[in-house]
């Protein structure tokens, strides 16, 4: 099929974003502000990791169709360098304080939920299935991150200050979520995938509504960082991958 390489790349975007964000959330385990958040971060991270595995599994199969060999989930996750990763820039930004983690999570969840909703209507049954299952988890993730954003924003002076700072700091990475998406557009034409640019109005509306409820100002910056679709990432990704991949790279093919 003609669009296989395009679809492979598109699936990697989904898988890589989930994988990187899961890795980030895992770093909070044992370090959360309260025990309940420790568990919540782990839960959200594990949900995303599960979705990543499903996307990687399908991506591998698609790759097998046009490249002759299908890479396994482990090979795709642990043996690619940052230039080959297609995760959105937002998820590789550091955890920072909890406000930064929540802002990053909310910007992502608000987009992720719209994206999975759209993909659940894909003409590709596998994509629709994965998106439908993931969608239920992500609806909950969005409730959580919105809930925290509102409470921290409309909270004490310190929490509001930190929450506004976090929303401002991460805004320049959020725009990429809904930038023009040629590949997505092509696949959307075949009914397979979603052109993420079409999610812009709904995403912005949701972000505005929640920031408003949190009594925070929506950041005014109109310029956005970009490049993940071409494998151009910020300086944070290679550190994250080095730590994540060190075991597989030191002992290639290692099995439990």
């Amino acid at each position: 099929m003609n669009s296989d390489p395009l679809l492979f790349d598109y699936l990697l975007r989904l898988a890589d974003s989930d994988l990187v964000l899961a890795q980030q959330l895992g770093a909070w385990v044992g370090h959360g502000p309260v025990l309940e958040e420790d568990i919540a971060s782990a839960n959200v991270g594990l949900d995303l990791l599960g979705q990543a595995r499903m996307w990687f599994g399908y991506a591998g199969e698609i790759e097998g169709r046009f490249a002759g060999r299908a890479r396994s989930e482990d090979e795709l996750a642990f043996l690619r360098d940052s230039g080959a990763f297609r995760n959105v820039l937002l998820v590789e930004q550091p955890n920072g304080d909890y406000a930064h983690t929540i802002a990053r999570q909310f910007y992502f969840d608000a987009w992720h939920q719209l994206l999975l909703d759209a993909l659940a209507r894909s003409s590709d049954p596998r994509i629709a299935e994965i998106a439908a299952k993931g969608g239920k988890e992500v609806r909950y993730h969005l409730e959580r991150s919105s809930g925290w954003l509102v409470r921290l924003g409309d909270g004490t002076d310190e929490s509001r200050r930190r929450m506004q700072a976090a929303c401002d700091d991460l805004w320049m990475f959020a725009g990429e979520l809904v930038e023009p998406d040629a590949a997505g557009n092509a696949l959307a034409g075949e009914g397979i995938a979603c052109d993420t640019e079409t999610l812009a109005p709904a995403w912005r509306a949701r972000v505005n509504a929640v920031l408003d409820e949190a009594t925070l100002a929506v950041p005014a910056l109109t310029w956005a960082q970009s490049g993940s679709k071409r494998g151009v990432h910020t300086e944070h990704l290679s550190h994250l991958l080095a730590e994540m991949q060190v075991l597989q790279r030191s002992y290639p093919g290692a099995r439990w």
Partner: protein
Amino acid sequence: MSANELPLWEVFIRSQHGLAHKHVGSLHAADAEMAIRNARDVYTRRNEGVSIWVVRSADVTASAPGEKEPMFEPANSKVYRHPTFFPMPDEVKHI
């Protein structure tokens, strides 16, 4: 955010096949909505339930352990309170 400032909530879960909510533990949360979400994350990871109740621990009034004798001992020796003096016919097995 320290646990000193977040109130404590008691969590009750009703399982899929249950009729009553059972007490499963407690957790800290800022308010009722967050308490429900935290309870979902902490106490329903293994499909333990389909319904969650949370109550502020401060709202729970408990009987004092020191009062066990006057509260509960008298009921031990009042045999007439138990309906055990009716001979049940065999035909009525499952009342």
